[in-house]
């Protein structure tokens, strides 16, 4: 359905890609962008000019990054992406099943 709409808009020459396209990369310790506050940002970037925040926009109102979460009124969404999080290498996450799961019931065929 999306493809047919896309092809129609391509035929009408009205296709404008507008989903999550505008992006800018900034540093969170940039004194030109952020005034003084209580936070002492540790430099976790890969270099003096490397970013740790990505600024993006979507030409629709969404609650999450899914099509099903569209807000039914004209809106734009601005969001920020933290690029260099610490948790990823210092504290490994966990995997578990959301219900009690009988993993020991394996089926063995011989």
């Amino acid at each position, binding site marked *: 359905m999306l493809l047919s709409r896309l092809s129609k808009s391509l035929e009408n020459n009205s296709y404008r890609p507008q989903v999550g396209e505008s992006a800018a*990369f*900034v540093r*969170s310790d940039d004194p030109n*962008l*952020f005034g003084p*506050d*209580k*936070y*002492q*940002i*540790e430099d*976790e*970037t*890969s270099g003096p000019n*490397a*970013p*740790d*925040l990505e*600024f993006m926009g979507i030409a629709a*109102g969404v*609650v*999450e*990054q899914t099509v099903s979460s569209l*807000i039914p*009124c*004209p*809106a*734009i969404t*601005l*969001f*920020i*992406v*933290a*690029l*260099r*999080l*610490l*948790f*990823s*290498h*210092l*504290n*490994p*996450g*966990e*995997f*578990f*099943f*959301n*219900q009690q*799961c*009988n*993993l020991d*019931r*394996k*089926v*063995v*065929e*011989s």
Partner: protein
Amino acid sequence: MSLFLSKTISCFNLVTKFRYLEKPNDLAVLVRGFKLLIKVSKAEPLASALKKIDHELLDHDLDLDRVSDETLEKEVRQRIETLYHPTSTCRMAKLEDGGVVDAQLRVHGLENVRIADASIFPRIPAGHTVSVIRFCIEFLLRLFAFFRPRPFLQLLKRLLIS
């Protein structure tokens, strides 16, 4: 013989706990980012293009002069989501530092098992992960080219042994 899990397993969802915002620095970076979002939305030419519509999910009331850092921290904790670029689950580091593979992409303790994908990144890169994965594959191919069996040398060895 074959070994597989019973069908009932498919009704359970695997839950991943990434431990977001466990470090205070991560929260501070995101709060600064939130401030940038508010600043941009209040700046021209965007500010004059926006009209106020009453909807519970739209942010018209966020203003940096009125909102405290604590409120922004709460908002960040409520609104955060992942962009599904998980990496570094088998990170390249020493065994005592919690690493899984060494600089030759070999799993520690295993001679012939190598990993080349996003799981070996020591840190998540600031750009898209796919370009770094391509470099990983390139590096792996070069390793294989270096260690490949050389037919001429093998022939020479056979001749010498015989």
